[in-house]
């Protein structure tokens, strides 16, 4: 058969295309491809939720205290370990295998433990606030390593799991597809947390104080704000969110040493893309990183995280303050 206008190579390609269309069974099942897409979107939301919960605290601390807190992911991992190492066992002793309390209590417990621990290092934050970048980076990174050693000291070196809620929640089947219900819970929780945080930051008086201090802390002090109290509130909120995130995330994975560093890198890319010190920026950045990761895995699984860094470099070159930067909050 001659196909007009295609030329020799074009004709071959057309035949190959036809061959694929006829013999590739996937072409005929469009429904499945739509489902693939939906599951991918679902994964993007899950990944973004976790990244958002880490990055937002990093951003709040930077916004108000101007500290690039490299130890922040360790707060998140402390939340993970609190639940995987101790908390989940206690909760199961109390609640047995009833699902609702096992979903709700662990993140709150983790958030509480992490917030209390952050009080212990609050003086350190006061000390490095206003010091040079290199002092802050060295001290916060050192803090991250110390945290890792504390995890090892308390919970040992083996990976720990707390997967009971993940398993109890089971999977939702849609057609021939299964998706884990627990991840839906994480996504919804992250949305609710984001909403509450937004209301707090933009509608409450403390939120106003926080935003004011982040814009000009001296002016805020001159106008009568108790700066020390504001700083304490900042650290408490940031660590509470990190703990909450860790407690929410851990049932779907395992707590292991070295996790803090992995999350540090990802959270940093989120912040770089979204803009340092911006609430909306961390939301946008988390989504972009999560979308990029999924695209990489579809198109060039070999590259893994490379695409994320490439985009981060492009954004840093074109808009160094990040997508949401410049415009505060």
């Amino acid at each position, binding site marked *: 058969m001659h196909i007009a206008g295609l030329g020799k190579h074009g004709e071959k390609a057309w035949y190959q295309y036809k061959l694929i269309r006829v013999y590739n069974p996937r072409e005929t099942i469009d429904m499945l491809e739509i489902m693939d897409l939906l599951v991918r979107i679902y994964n993007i939301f899950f990944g973004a939720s976790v990244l958002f919960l880490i990055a937002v605290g990093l951003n709040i601390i930077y916004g108000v205290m101007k500290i690039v807190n490299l130890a922040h992911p360790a707060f998140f991992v402390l939340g993970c370990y609190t639940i995987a190492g101790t908390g989940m066992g206690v909760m199961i002793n109390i609640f047995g295998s009833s699902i609702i309390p096992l979903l709700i209590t662990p993140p709150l417990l983790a958030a509480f433990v992490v917030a209390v621990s952050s009080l212990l290092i609050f003086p350190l934050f006061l000390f490095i606030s206003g010091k040079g970048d290199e002092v802050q980076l060295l001290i916060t990174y050192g803090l991250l390593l110390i945290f890792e050693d504390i995890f090892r000291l308390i919970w040992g070196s*083996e*990976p720990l799991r707390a997967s009971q809620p993940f398993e109890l929640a089971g999977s939702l089947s849609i057609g021939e597809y*299964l998706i884990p219900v627990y991840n839906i819970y994480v996504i919804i929780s992250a949305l609710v947390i984001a909403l509450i945080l937004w209301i707090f930051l933009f509608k409450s008086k403390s939120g106003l104080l926080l935003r004011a201090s982040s814009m000009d802390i001296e002016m805020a002090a001159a106008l009568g704000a108790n700066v020390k109290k504001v700083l304490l509130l900042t650290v408490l909120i940031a660590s509470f969110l990190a703990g909450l995130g860790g407690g929410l995330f851990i049932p779907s*994975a*395992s707590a292991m040493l070295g996790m803090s560093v992995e999350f540090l890198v990802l959270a940093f890319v989120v912040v770089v893309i979204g803009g340092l010190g911006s609430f909306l920026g961390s939301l946008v950045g988390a989504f972009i990183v999560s979308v990029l990761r999924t695209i990489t895995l579809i198109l060039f699984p070999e590259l893994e995280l490379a695409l994320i860094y490439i985009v981060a470099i492009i954004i840093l070159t074109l808009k160094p303050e990040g997508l949401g930067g410049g415009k505060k909050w």
Partner: protein
Amino acid sequence: MSKKTGRRDFLKGLVSGLVVGGIAGVAGTEIYRGLAPPPPPVREEIPTTPIKAGIQAYLTGGGALWGKPMMQGAILAIEEINERGGILGRKIEYVVKSETSPEETVREYRTLVLDEKIDFYVGLISSSNTPAVGPVAEELQTLTFFVDGCTDFLFESVVPDPRFCFRITNIQSADGVAAAIGAIKLLNLTEKDKVRIAHIHPDYAYGRNAHAHMQITFEKVLGKDRVEVVYEAFPGLFKITDFSPYITEIIANRPDILASSLWGADVVNFYKQAIGYGLFEKMKYVSCIAHAASPAEAVKDFPDGHIAGVHANYFFLYPEWDKYPINKSFVNNYYRRWGTYPDSPSEGAYVAVYLYKNAVEKAYTMIGRFPEVDDIIRALEGMTIYGPAGPIHVRAEKPNKHQCYKDGIVGISKYDPRFGFSVLDKPIVIPISKITVPEGWEGTPDPKAGTLAYSWIRETWREGVVPV
């Protein structure tokens, strides 16, 4: 005159014959007694100072699921030997150091040799570390048993003519080959017209090696055009906690089998999350390594009916206990000492210590004094001993000189309520001689995969034939 032998003469002759014969017989035994033993060597006094062993194992991070049992296996062997009076009366002491990154691991190794003055060394899990420590062991001239870190590169290119390093665990290429053959036989893949394969492996030397050797085995045994690779991913080792995007891509490409060498914390995270997405109902998971270490933690509720590899080494239920008491007593002693069941790394470390003991004793019977390191090496080369996994042989000649070989097994995963975790069911034994480069083979490593085994399979296997 003819002399006739009379009755009296006959009797006389008989009696004297008996007497002479008897005397000769007795003398013969005496002479024989004098000849039988080898010339008695001049036995020198054995020193009474203890022998010092150095153990180096992953005690932190995702690799601890391997490092801890490895350390426990070595310690058990040392304690057993000490309880029975030591090696030629000398007790063994041990020092434990931690395995980490290559530079740090080498530094700790040097400390063991130079400061602790160890007599022999048992350690290492990672294939990044053995090529770093191997040359140092040769330089410092210390008898070194690598338990794992089984990369083909070590004895093929890094230390091609080793004197002081030995390695217990089967060579890495055998891992991927054994799992692929296990999958082909246990899943009857030869009966399928086309097999769609997805791959997921950790992104470093081991994952790449497993990927290459599983793939070439599938292509050779099933025929190249019957194998279709639909997806390949290489997540960083212990860097990914959320595998859901990978799981979704694997499912979306609809493979028949998923070939994987994920291990340690990675395999736990992967399979737990994959259960949530129903991956295991949609394809067969072919793992070369998931059941190999700490099965009680690593594969506690692993789904049934998938291909379970043990790194082509050892699973504590096999060889069956009633048929092979060495394994039974090892499992019992290990359980009594550590409260858990042994696995591939613990068996490897246990065998390493016993190889040392056997070599020292063998050398002693030959030279009559406590052997120097060179005597022990001579005794080790070509030695075969019976370990819990069966006979294990130390290769004496190139290629892969000083690599140990034993038959591997692959089975089907099945939850066992007696133990409370997933075990190997219906295991098939993969004879190591059929899947690894034979002694004396003169080929060149494949430029792409970098191993001799890859070229050997490519050049010598017949397409479409199951080699085992």
